[in-house]
């Protein structure tokens, strides 16, 4: 039991160190030209564009369900007119960016970790090095940057789609006037709300991509380890997002 605790602690510390080192390597390689534009574009397509349907559905259903729940819950107190305000605020400040990040962590983080892990096992990462090139430049940087660029955009999309989802349910189920709903939303939401939500997703992007690359690159051998790395990448980056969300939210309130 203590043995197991110790090995978990060991792995945790290794991860923290490895995360830091990888982040530093990415930063230092970014300073050296040339830049791999083509690889970045490929990853933007893979990470951003192809996550589109997933994020759309997640955001739409989140907005709809929240509106339904609040609508029914607040009806007892005659609070239905507050629904547009509450729903849109929670989406912009929390649900949009956080759910988007969690979904991307699952879809993209798993993909990255398993792809990189398989490349380690088949010695392709070694081959990149042996041919006088750098896996950080060729593999890690395009993925980290693409996530960094795409996640805030996906989060913004989720905000919009979530609010529209709320509007649909508000009008059809709660029988609220659409003009009233839109007026409430537009007068409530401030740019501040938007930035405090989407601002966090820049951090979440780093959590997701660096974590996935770390677990992929630290695969030693064997396909079994690739599966393990994939699971760890998703679990760890999800935890980082949830825990980080609390602290980042606090931080943004102070600023």
């Amino acid at each position: 039991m203590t043995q197991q605790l110790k090995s978990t602690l060991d792995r945790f510390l290794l991860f923290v160190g490895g995360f830091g080192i990888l982040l530093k390597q990415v930063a230092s390689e970014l300073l050296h030209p040339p830049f791999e534009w083509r690889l970045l574009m490929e990853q933007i397509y893979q990470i951003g564009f192809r996550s589109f349907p997933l994020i759309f559905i997640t955001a739409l259903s989140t907005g709809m369900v929240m509106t339904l729940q609040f609508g029914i819950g607040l009806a007892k107190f005659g609070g239905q007119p507050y629904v547009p305000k509450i729903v849109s605020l929670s989406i912009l400040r929390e649900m949009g960016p956080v759910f988007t990040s969690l979904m991307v962590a699952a879809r993209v983080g798993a993909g990255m970790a398993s792809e990189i892990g398989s490349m380690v096992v088949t010695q392709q990462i070694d081959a990149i090095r042996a041919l006088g090139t750098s896996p950080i430049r060729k593999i890690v940087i395009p993925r980290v940057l693409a996530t960094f660029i795409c996640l805030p955009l996906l989060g913004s999309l989720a905000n919009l789609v979530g609010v529209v989802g709320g509007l649909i349910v508000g009008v059809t189920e709660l029988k609220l006037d659409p003009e009233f709903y839109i007026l409430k939303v537009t007068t409530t939401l401030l740019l501040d709300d938007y930035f405090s939500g989407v601002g966090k997703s820049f951090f979440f992007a780093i959590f997701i991509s660096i974590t996935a690359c770390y677990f992929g690159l630290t695969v030693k051998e064997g396909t079994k380890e690739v599966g393990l790395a994939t699971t760890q990448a998703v679990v760890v980056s999800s935890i980082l997002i949830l825990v980080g969300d609390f602290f980042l939210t606090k931080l943004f309130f102070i600023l």
Partner: protein
Amino acid sequence: MIEVRRFKKRFGSKEVHRGVSFHVEQGECLGLIGGSGSGKSVLLRSLIGLEKADSGSIVIEGQDITQMTERELIGIRKKVAYAFQGGALFDSMTVFDNLAYPLREHTDLKESDIKKKIRDLLFEFGLADSENLFPGSLSGGMQKRVGLARAIILNPDTILYDEPTAGLDPFNTRKISEMILRLKAKKKTGILVTHDMPVAFEVCDRIALLVHGNLDIIAKPKEIQQDALHPISIFAHGDIT
């Protein structure tokens, strides 16, 4: 010129190399034999810094590579090519793009020149029709040959061959050993890891035996062939491991 001195490497509690010393002259081809798991691949990988030495020195063209950073090693890796035991091809790229990779990274060749160079090389390796195939659809032997072609495409000074003929049919084995001889005629330095004694006798100037993490036994092919009781002859006959 490669000079290795008291090279040590261990993985966890497993001591793979316990102080290996040897040198390879410019233009020479050194054969390296030893049982499976004796550390031949680890030794080759260490020569280009893919594995970090625990202690000892590895001097290539006057530079000790054991202390180099990943960025400094790039220069060495352009001069010393490693042909991976399994090919290590990029499976998301076609054969053509695999071969073009080093050229696009390290040369200013025009795409048309790259094309011509790759076509010629593929023809030489008997792979003329596989340009547009992905590595997944090649046989093991074909992957190996593409890997070797990719390793030598930048015209390196030194080539480290990791079992280049294992798993090949006699015809392709013949082709590979001719290729190695041709590279040797161009004064390329080579280290050839192999279990294939006839090939080793044919292309190597000296042959070294790696046992128990040491590399003390080195002899010329003639000396080995004439002496049935030479340790390398005994190893080749499968009497010791």
